[in-house]
């Protein structure tokens, strides 16, 4: 049984639905770890509220946030996957079907950028990126709905042969611009190099790495550790009303490029919406997170 239109349609809809009702386990762990180290009483109270909100959403099958965002999918197709049907259409149709049936209903967040008209549908919605995995016999779908509160603070600047000091200073500049606004403690993704679009993609994907994992590149691992210390030294704190916990993680990745080096920085809010599953060639669905 190959990977079918129906299977992709059903799974892409389910991933979006699931992502709205549960904070990922690594993120709950990050909030609990922050609660143990946070020195400000008010900040601890906010962190406790975050954990309480997450638990209540899961227990009562509610949305954690009313801004369900817009559906963003990252699809990876294995070169050994056997496809039967238009899986691109399946993702779009799955979103449409979900809008019809989801309870509670979704707010109309999909916005025409030229007219600001809002609805459930629109051009290029859902937003999908496509990648290929050599030899794999599955299709992986990662759903990361993006809300306005944290989405709007992403930024990118292009440098020529920057030093690490310049790159890190730019990250801190973007952190300062976001300030209290993006529902901290956030997960920060940094993408260095490649080209304009590649750097942004790397930054976005970096936010999806599990909190607590160590970057396999020692140079990046140490950069992540010192940037996390630096971000938390700013003192914006949970929900930006003060404290030691402004970020739960900083994840950095890079691609080689020419010498003009884009540096992209983006943020996920504390609820860190993220679900991922694979459909294998035998039709089985493997829920990854």
């Amino acid at each position, binding site marked *: 049984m190959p990977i079918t239109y129906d299977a992709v349609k059903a799974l892409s809809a389910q991933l979006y639905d699931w992502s709205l009702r549960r904070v990922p386990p690594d993120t709950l762990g990050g909030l609990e770890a922050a609660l143990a180290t946070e020195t400000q009483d008010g900040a601890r109270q906010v962190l406790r509220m*975050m954990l309480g909100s997450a638990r209540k959403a899961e227990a009562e099958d509610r949305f954690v946030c009313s801004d369900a965002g817009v559906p963003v999918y990252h699809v990876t197709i294995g070169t050994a996957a056997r496809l039967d049907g238009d899986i691109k259409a399946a993702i779009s149709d799955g979103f449409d079907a979900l809008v019809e049936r989801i309870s509670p209903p979704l707010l109309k967040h999909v916005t025409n950028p030229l007219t600001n008209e809002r609805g459930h549908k629109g051009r290029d919605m859902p937003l999908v990126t496509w990648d290929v995995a050599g030899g794999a016999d599955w299709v992986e779908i990662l759903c990361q709905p993006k809300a306005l509160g944290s989405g709007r603070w992403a930024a990118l600047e292009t440098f020529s042969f920057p030093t690490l*000091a310049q790159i890190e200073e730019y990250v801190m500049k973007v952190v300062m611009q976001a300030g209290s606004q993006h529902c901290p403690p956030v997960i920060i993704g940094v993408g260095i190099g490649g080209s304009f679009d590649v750097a942004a993609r790397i930054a976005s994907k970096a936010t999806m790495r599990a909190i607590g994992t160590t970057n396999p590149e020692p140079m990046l691992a140490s950069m992540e550790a010192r940037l996390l210390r630096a971000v938390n030294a700013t003192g*914006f704190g949970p929900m930006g009303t003060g404290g030691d916990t402004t970020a739960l993680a900083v994840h950095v990745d890079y691609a080689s490029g020419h010498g003009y080096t884009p540096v992209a920085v983006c943020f996920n809010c504390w609820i860190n919406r993220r679900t991922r599953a694979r459909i294998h060639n035998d039709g089985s669905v493997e829920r990854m997170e």
Partner: protein
Amino acid sequence: MSAPQDQKQGTAGLNRPRPADIRTLRFPLTRDDARRLRAGDMILADGEIVITAGLPTVQRLVACAEEARDPPIALDGGSLFHLGSYSQDTADGGLEILYMNPTTSTRFNPLMPRLIRHFGLTAVGGKGGLDAGCVEAMREVGCVYLSFLGGGAPLHSAAIKAVREVAYPDLVAHYRLVRLAVEGLGPLTVGIDAHGNSLFDALQQQAADRMPDILARLDADRAAS
């Protein structure tokens, strides 16, 4: 206002309260209650609030103020929170709010001073704070900014006791103007008090002041790695 009430706190004075300090206040907040609050206090809200997450909605309210028309829901001396909600009709002809959560307040910065002054609002709020122009209007009028937990929809929604009024039905759900009865809404952090103290501005300044040391530490850590 007396001088001590107007005195601004330094950043060092903006320590948060212990949870035991959280009081429940009646809404609409009285002007005296608003002025008694200090940036960093945490409170719970009982009573009635007015909410919307919509820029078109806030623009319509500004038009009401400019044209001396009454808004569809009375705002005088009340609150206007930047909260989005999803409501649906109920079998008995009423409305039920399915979920509610704050939206970013700063995009309303240009419009809020006019509304705060015209309607004499005692409380505004949402998430992320408001700018210096709003802080000044709030100080003049005696109005506080309350910071809601973003991603707190299950908690905020559970505090809703009744939907009293819904206006602007032509707008999408979260843009409508809604008057709600709430009980135990919060805890809410006083992000900006009625005396010109803004946690958001103070923390932004604090972070800017710390930045030379933060960058120096980054350099030292990089050199050691």
